[in-house]
């Protein structure tokens, strides 16, 4: 299904330098205390220190597809020579998409684009600006060597070596990197690169993936998170308490790889102007403020409730149980008052008093129903340790169910990150097909 290639650090940077002619190559760059994805030149890449190139970015690579600010439409009006009161107005929509390689993001970053694809590309209306960039971009993702303290991809269906959303996934091994080509787009990018075959390194790659997964903190039991978070909507005391420290600065939303919100504003004049799209944040009071002065979300607690509920309840409700969170932890790290979405979600779930009608515990193994779609990977037994530690009950129940329900190797892979159960917990079987559809993209 996928081919494995080996590259030394020099070969990898040389390859990137080569790609920089003909592509915009975005890679992490240290800028003061921040690490951000920036276009890099062939010279920079050729001489780059590989470790510097592989730093964990403090800002998500969202702007590869969604620039912080972009022109949607330009307008120009010309006055009629005979009758200056008459105008002829011409509009143009500059949809730009230069061939791009997004290098060095993490699996959570790549999954972030899958989350954005659903509202931007899979609804009744397609966003052509996002779509053009998405199409023109090849995503070369770095499997995480180990978990950071704020990482929680395992809560939301990801793993430190998840392939979802990536075209190539590379893993550090002794002496270099193993590149796993995941998609045809990825294949096109390594065509002619001259990398050696690395099928013999599969075990080493698996071991690295397993070690990274084991370094994650175990995920809590979060079944029915969608319903439970929704059930806290009217519990204003809860949201007030959780939001006391919030400054409404919006850092969490701007750094988030899955936050999709934007505003549209005009600048210039009718004679010569443009309509812009800029990132916006649901954490600011003006976001929903109406002209009349009425605001459906006047308090910061209302806004936090919307943000957390959107990620763990509204979005899943709209999109087959998928979360609008990939567990990258940037909002946790960068919050100036140390608010932690993990804590909020967990507290919301634990304090929920709703009755889940359909047999809750038996539902956990529903993850197994999804197993066939899991991209096949050889089992990594040791990965199961954190899984079982995290959620002993579901994991134990899941184990015997697996072989019956799914192709064994896939199931074994799937069982590793216990919290994948979260992914399917809110819904049952029908979701599987949707998920496989989403994964094929």
């Amino acid at each position, binding site marked *: 299904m996928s081919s494995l290639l080996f590259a030394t650090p020099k070969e990898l940077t040389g390859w990137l330098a080569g790609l920089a002619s003909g592509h915009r190559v975005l890679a992490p760059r240290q800028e003061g205390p921040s690490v951000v994805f920036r276009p890099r030149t062939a010279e920079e890449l050729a001489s780059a220190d590989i470790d510097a190139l592989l730093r964990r970015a403090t800002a998500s690579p969202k702007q590869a597809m969604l620039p912080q600010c972009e022109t949607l439409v330009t*307008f120009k*009006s010309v006055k009629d020579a005979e009758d200056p009161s008459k105008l002829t107005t011409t509009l143009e929509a500059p949809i730009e998409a230069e061939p791009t390689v997004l290098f060095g993001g993490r699996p959570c970053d790549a999954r972030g684009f899958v989350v954005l694809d659903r509202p931007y590309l899979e609804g*009744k209306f397609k966003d*052509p600006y996002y779509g053009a960039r998405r199409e023109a971009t090849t995503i070369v993702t770095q499997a995480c060597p180990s978990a950071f303290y704020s990482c929680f991809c395992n809560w939301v269906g990801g793993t430190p070596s998840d392939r979802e959303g990536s075209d190539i996934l590379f893993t550090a091994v002794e002496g270099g990197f193993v590149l796993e080509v995941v998609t045809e787009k990825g294949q096109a990018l390594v065509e002619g690169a001259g990398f050696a075959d690395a099928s013999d390194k599969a075990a080493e790659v698996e071991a690295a993936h397993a070690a990274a997964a084991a370094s994650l903190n175990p995920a809590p039991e979060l079944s029915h998170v969608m319903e439970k978070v929704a059930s806290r909507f009217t519990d204003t005391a809860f949201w007030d308490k959780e939001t006391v420290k919030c400054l409404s600065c919006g850092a969490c939303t701007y750094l988030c790889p899955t936050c999709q919100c934007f505003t*549209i504003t005009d600048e210039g004049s009718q004679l010569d102007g443009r309509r812009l799209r800029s990132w916006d944040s649901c954490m600011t009071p003006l976001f929903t403020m109406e002209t009349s002065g009425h605001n459906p979300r006047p308090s910061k607690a209302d806004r936090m409730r919307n943000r957390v509920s959107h990620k763990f*309840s509204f979005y899943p409700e709209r999109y087959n149980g998928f979360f609008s969170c990939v567990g990258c932890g940037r909002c946790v790290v960068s919050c100036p008052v140390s608010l932690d979405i993990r804590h909020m979600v967990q507290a919301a779930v634990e304090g929920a008093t709703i009755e889940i009608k359909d047999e809750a515990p038996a539902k956990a193994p529903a993850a197994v129903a999804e197993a066939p779609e899991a991209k096949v990977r050889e089992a990594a037994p040791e990965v199961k340790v954190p899984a079982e530690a995290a959620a002993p009950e579901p994991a134990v129940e899941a184990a015997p169910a697996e072989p019956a329900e799914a192709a064994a190797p896939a199931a074994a892979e799937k069982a590793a990150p216990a919290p994948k159960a979260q992914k399917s917990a809110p819904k049952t079987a029908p979701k599987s097909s949707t998920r496989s559809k989403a994964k094929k993209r």
Partner: protein
Amino acid sequence: MSEHDCGCSKNPYLPEVATVLEVITESPTIKSFRVRFDNEEAWNSFTFQPGQVGQLSVFGVGESTFVINTPPSCKDYIQFSVMRAGEVTTAIHKLQPGDKVGVRAPLGNYFPYEQWKGKNIVFVGGGIGMAPIRTIMLHVMEHASEYGRLSLLYGARSPEDMAYKADLPGWLESDVLHTTLTIDREAPNWPHRVGMIPNVLKELAPSPDNTIAVLCGPPIMIKFTLAAFREMGFKDENIITTLERRMKCGIGICGRCNLGGKYVCLDGPVFSQAQLNELPPEM
């Protein structure tokens, strides 16, 4: 809802350039604008359903969302009624015939009139809320034989606040529509009712049997009119209303107008009260 060609495959952010054909001053704060796309091909292929909205823009100022309040049968223009309130609506109010605007339409869902065939319909409009009522009411009146008894209760603060004055005589004399007009307080030479909409509605006492209630207006009017309908025995699934929220994209992406997992711009603006009961109380 039913399939139709809405041009979804086009760039949904790119407006059609349209020309203002006529400006009607409806009240001290409300004007209606009749516009038509400049591109003949786009205009000829343009269709919409009653209740759908459009993003009307003044280039260089911005866009705002308004319901198209003409019925789909009107092929000469589409009409938006705009209450002056903020930056964009103030700029719109300055428009003159011949001026250029941008229109992105149709957006959103529409009144489920296919399900109302054979039923009585009570329309209740309050203030600028008469705009969405106008489109569906005119549409239904054109096909009156397919429905039962049609009635309208339209209320405004004062006679001068009442919009669509040009339509009122026709509605009052119509054979297919039973019209009641009301204002909040006594005014000289006002021959119609005086009183708040919910109170007048209770006096009219429409029967809930086989009847759909369609109400649009300011939140406070909705609140009490809804209570009045429920008191009279109307079921929530037969009470239809439209919602308003701050909107930008109009296509369910920019994240502003959600009510729980629903976007008012995409899944609305038309909802039954039964549907609203299922959504988080965040009005």
